[in-house]
């Protein structure tokens, strides 16, 4: 199915209608919804949390300099908490994707294989 409108090397190849069908399936719409419902809030959360840390380091100097234990101050604890939240979000993401998104992706991918193998 060659695209006759434009030079094929100037434009990405014409697209395969199988993708339109798969895109319209309720499974794919559900997959996208699930993906977004984790990724969007998580991204907003970790970026705000990180920016809060950066801004407070500069404009909340007294609070950040308060000592917690010995020479360990709030700034250091806050910094170490960024490590903890990064590990935590990464782990939660992997768990969520494996349980909620991967099975749907496999299903749609199998459907695609079936469609193209019949040609």
């Amino acid at each position: 199915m060659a695209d006759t409108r434009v030079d094929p090397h100037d434009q990405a190849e014409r697209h395969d209608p199988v993708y339109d069908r798969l895109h319209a399936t309720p499974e794919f719409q559900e997959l996208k919804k699930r993906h977004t419902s984790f990724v969007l809030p998580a991204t907003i959360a970790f970026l705000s949390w990180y920016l809060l840390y950066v801004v407070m380091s500069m404009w909340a100097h007294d609070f950040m300099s308060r000592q917690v234990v010995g020479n360990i101050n709030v700034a250091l604890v806050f910094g170490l908490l960024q490590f903890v939240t990064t590990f935590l979000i990464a782990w939660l993401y992997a768990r969520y994707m494996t349980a909620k998104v991967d099975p749907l992706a496999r299903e749609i991918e199998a459907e695609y294989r079936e469609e193209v193998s019949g040609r």
Partner: protein
Amino acid sequence: MSSDTLTAILFVAVVLITVGITFWANRQTHGTTDYYAGGRSFSGFQNGMAISGDYMSAASFLGISGAIALSGYDGFLYSIGFLVAWLVALLLVAELLRNSGRYTMADQLAYRMRQRPVRTAAATSTVVVSIFYLLAQMVGAGALVALLLGVTDESIKAWTIVAVGLLMVFYVTVGGMKGTTWVQIVKAVLLMGGTILITVLVLAEFNFNLSSLLGAAAENTGKGEGFLQPGLKYGVSTTSKIDFVSLGIALVLGTAGLPHILIRFYTVPTAKDARTSVLWAIGLIGAFYLMTLALGFGAAALLNTGPDSEVAASGGNLASPLLAEFLGGGEGTTGGAVLLALISAVAFATILAVVAGLTLTSASSVAHDLYATVFKKGQATEKEEVKVARIAAFVIGGIAIGLAIPAQKLNIAFLVALAFAVAASANLPSIIYNMFWKRFNTRGATWAIYGGLISCVVLVFFSPVVSGLGVNPVTGASLSLFPADVDFHWFPLQNPGIVSIPLGFFFGWLGTVTSKEPTAEDKFTELEVRAFTGAGAEQAHH
């Protein structure tokens, strides 16, 4: 055995091992998929190691510990930003990119847009980001060898840079992605081992009590409590505070736009393996950055970091190796010589692995995007393409060598931060728009890339980094790239990200809404299905 002999032996060992790997990889490489993407046959764990090896550069090992040793807590921002950034890569980019691209960053854009303009733009920014990053690594190599040989002779530093440049060109032309990946895996092991060793030795000096390590750092530097609090370097004025925020934003958004990191996602068989590799990378990188606290504060606590010290003269870049020497017993002792040689060899391996990754990335982009698609309009054979990639590696190596020699007095972590700013301004907007915005099109992509790239480079050129920062009160040398009597800066910040990243997103939006491209919108469904499910994605070659 003298320290010089030992150092020489270890450096030669690092070179021999990596050269051996490269020759072995050469025999395993048969086509473009092998050359560019290592046959997509690495496991998630292997690629996670390689990502860590690719990412933790001289900036991390030498630069961050130096930044902490000199400016205390403020230097720790690098560690945090460099790590949190991986969540952007994990959640928004890694898997989707693996499913929708083949060899280069541009593939994913070219999927639904006009090939020639987007590939030209993406290849340009790939080369610019990689060269900024290469500079930092080569400056590190020059400083390191000068320290080991105990010379201040500029020509020896320059020859070191040339030698590193030739080695990296060799790795890339002969070993391709397979060789580069294995070099990075070996390096990750060496770097983690070396860092754990120094961390344990530092903590042992303070009975494994973090609080007393910090206390000793505050006391030894003579800066007291302020050394452990944020703001020592960046808290002096509102401009410098904004500079800190700007640096923080570039660090967190840059990683997912670094071409040499992005192409690593193509080396695994599936998107799920790409996810696994990022998870491993986050674990390894996070552990490493936690240890930079011990390295940096350890150097501050145990070494002389005053304005006329060796650490300060190197912009902080020599803090880790000198710390190792001190922990081994100090200058002139056997233990000191052994540890200095060991850590320097680790730093050397680190630099070699990273420069190989960067050169491969730029060479791939020149060959695959510019030569094969733009110039030959898709008619190049695989053999021709790989040949061009090899030639490109030579040219890029030459440019990097030529630029690194005058850039030697800049802190490495700082130079890398500039590369992050360019990556976040020029590359991230188009990657995110392309995946999540149906309306996005060719003009949007090219405007985002060129707009972000040009804003970033122009702002750096007119910033205090290039001119107008004044002189070092002790040495009298200019703190900017230009001599102290030249001053044409008008942009107040040293880190351009806070302005150039929003500009990149703005230009991407503007270019898109001022043009219509129905084909790009039509193909969005295909891109989405493929990116989210892997339907039709590139397969592994065994």
